[in-house]
């Protein structure tokens, strides 16, 4: 009775086929249904097969995924490498060079130069992006590092956030607080205030023009 109440139990093929009894909720008084041996056997076999197939399908799916990924990576790799046509050209050029080695030296050199030039031209034409060839001797990496170090110091001492004023202000304050009081340096020394005077001139001219004070 307890086994029957547990419901369907897993069947094990090795142990043999047990008779599975289906309990229906509606009738408890009726006796158990009689299920034929063949039916239950086929049901069990079917379920086994289904499981196998499910596993196979899963494997297939995984395979597919892996295959797709592999293809994708291959395509990526292909994109990075140069095109096949270029590779063919590269293959032909050394052959050509081999041929020329039989000729005289001068001609060989000239042609080699031409070929290397053409090779370079072709290479530069097909390289992607803006690339240029530079010798390491001509421009050292140090100058850029030196420049960035100097920019760092400049930014820390004189950059934004540091409270700095001008030399004109410093000297004018000294004159104001000094023993012998004097005017600000912009007014005393003509060179100092030249910019401000020019600005003042311009704004005066603009004002006059706007107000149309000058009668034409």
């Amino acid at each position, binding site marked *: 009775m307890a086994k029957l109440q547990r419901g369907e139990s897993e069947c094990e093929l090795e142990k043999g086929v047990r008779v599975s009894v289906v309990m229906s909720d509606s009738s408890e008084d009726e006796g158990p249904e009689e299920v034929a041996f063949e039916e239950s056997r086929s049901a069990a076999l079917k379920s086994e097969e289904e499981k196998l197939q499910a596993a196979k399908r899963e494997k297939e799916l995984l395979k597919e995924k892996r295959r797709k990924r592999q293809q994708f990576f291959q395509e990526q790799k292909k994109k990075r490498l140069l095109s096949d046509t270029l590779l063919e050209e590269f293959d032909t050029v050394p052959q050509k060079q081999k041929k020329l080695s039989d000729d005289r030296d001068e001609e060989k050199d000239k042609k080699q130069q031409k070929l290397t030039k053409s090779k370079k031209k072709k290479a530069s034409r097909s390289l992607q992006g803006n690339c240029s060839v530079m010798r390491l001797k001509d421009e050292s990496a140090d100058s850029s590092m*030196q420049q960035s170090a100097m920019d760092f110091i400049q930014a820390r001492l004189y950059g934004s956030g540091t409270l*700095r004023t001008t030399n004109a202000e410093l000297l004018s304050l000294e004159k*104001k*607080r000094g023993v012998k009081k004097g005017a600000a340096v912009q007014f005393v020394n003509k060179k100092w205030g030249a910019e401000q005077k020019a600005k003042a001139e311009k704004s005066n001219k603009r004002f006059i023009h706007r107000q149309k004070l000058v009668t034409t």
Partner: protein
Amino acid sequence: MGEFKVHRVRFFDYMPSAIRALAFQPQREKIAVARTSGSVEIFNCADRFFQEKIIPGREQAATEALAWVGDRLFSAGLNGVISEYDLENQKVKYTIDAFGGPIWTIASNQQGTHLAVGCEDGTVKLFEVCEGKIQFEKNLAKQKGRILSLSWHPSGSRIVAGMMDMIRVFNTETGQSVHRLLVERGIGASRSVECVVWGVVYLSDGTIISGDSSGKVKIWDDLTGTLIKSHQVTKWDVLALSVSQDETSVVAGTSEGTVVQFQFLSVVLGQEDKEWVQTRIFKNHTHDVRTVLELGTAVVSGGMDTQFVVRPLLDKIEERGPECVLRKIQFPHRSLVSCAKKAGLLLFQYPGHLELWRLGESDGHGASGSVLPVKRKPEKLLHLKIKGEEHICCSAVSPCGEWIAYSTVASFRLYRLHCDNNNVSITKVSKLPKVLSSANQICFSSDSSKLFAASTCSSVHVVSLSQTVHKFVCTLKPKSGSVQAVHLLAASEDGKWLASANSDREVQIYNLTKMKLHSTVPVYNSGVTAMAIHPTTNNLFMVHADQQVFEYSIEEKKYTDWSRQVQRNGLHYLWLARDTPVTNVTFNPKNPTHIILHDAYMFCIIDQTLPLPDSSSQFYNQLTLRSLPEKDRTKHSHAFKMCKTFKELMFVELMEDQSLVAVERPLVEIAAQLPAPVRQKKFAT
């Protein structure tokens, strides 16, 4: 005395470069100063801070730090190379690439065996100091972040490195970081910016003192790796730290131009426990102070306002003397201007080029002190740019104005100048004798027929100049075999004698007719700052860095009577108390007893016929003499006639037409071109 028309020249735009690093050598009491132009100057502390040597810089130089190892001087810069200097010949001996990117700091250990450099890539590299070279030994553990300051522990077993936002203590044997001390960022807006530890100092008892960009001086204990005390010194950055030899005083230089001193004192009198207490503040600079040195008896500081300031600590000095004076050295102790007396031309030496100007003319007459109308304005005849990256070491123009010569560390150039009234043309002399590869000092003979070039080992090369061929005549060498360089040359008016002064305090006099050494002036323990040979009497007049004045008779090979009298009498205390050295001596052909000399703040005519001043008489007596009637003047006048009308003088010379040239460089003009100072809010402004 005489009336002179004075050409007041202000068109020499001399611009010094900012001081970036200082290093002190205790054995010979020398201070090496590195400027942002790449030049290195050596000042002698014992000799009134006389600027003994100048090693010229180069374009694109970015020297960041200096270090002495015994007698050898090393520097490191943002170009990533460590250079050793040849101090005798005043040039760079060799450079070695550290391969760590820009180098921010260099420090030598107390034993003098190793050099440590802090690089941009975060490594501290140790170099072993060998005979004649340095060799890379090892890298300490690489850090993430640039190393901005280094300090060795006096025992040499540990190094402390100041980086961004932290300080690391390394063990030099294992190379591993022992402690990491985290530095707090500033408050408010500066919290978002990294805190840069600009200076660190390692004391022998294990205390580490650091100065950072938040304006704090922090004191750490290296045993536990913790902060002991933090002092907020300024609102801006603390840029430099230095500790005295006896480790009782530390000075910190700040961005606002102040130098703050901390001393190791006991807070309560009588008690034993001492701590670091902020004691004094010195405000001697207007712009950032990038480097300080604590000498024990003085605090030396330098920064962006290009002044070299020596502030004596009077509580450490025992006797009153010339060391008790606050010194601000603004101008170089050598003349950058040379003058063609007969042609009325001035040659200005800039680091990268030369300028030749013709003086203006004026016809008018006026009372003393009045400004005369200018008939013809001064004009710039020549702007000669040098090729190459090196800066000019020395330059000269011949008295007739036809030859210009200059020398850098690597090359020597001579030019022939053709000057019609309106056209100026210059031709380079191409075939020079091979001995003239570079010179420390150049001088022309008075008739412009010979060129004297001072070279290595105090030797002087003599080259004869002519229209076509320039022949090497001979090399004049001193007997003593000194290896130091000559910094002054003086030729006599009649072309017979040549005097040379070198850094070993030797003054040699050569006979030019026989082309050999004539005599040597007795050695005086102060360096010669200016000298000249009198045109008629052939007496060599020398002024030294301690303001002593000597006159040596060349033909008789002994000091003159006047000179002995000056020494017996002693010079007036106001003359000896002047703090800038005399840089030029010249004579008046019409008055053979007059000697004209100048320093940065005065020019003076010494009259050898008048009596010498004694200490009771008034020294600056020109104005009082003018107010007296003519008869009384002779009673009160003395030999030293000082004039303080012209300030910030770089050069004073008497031309052939009896007019004086005074080249001034107002400090306000220099201040106008300095970088920006910090903004300080002062009361009532």
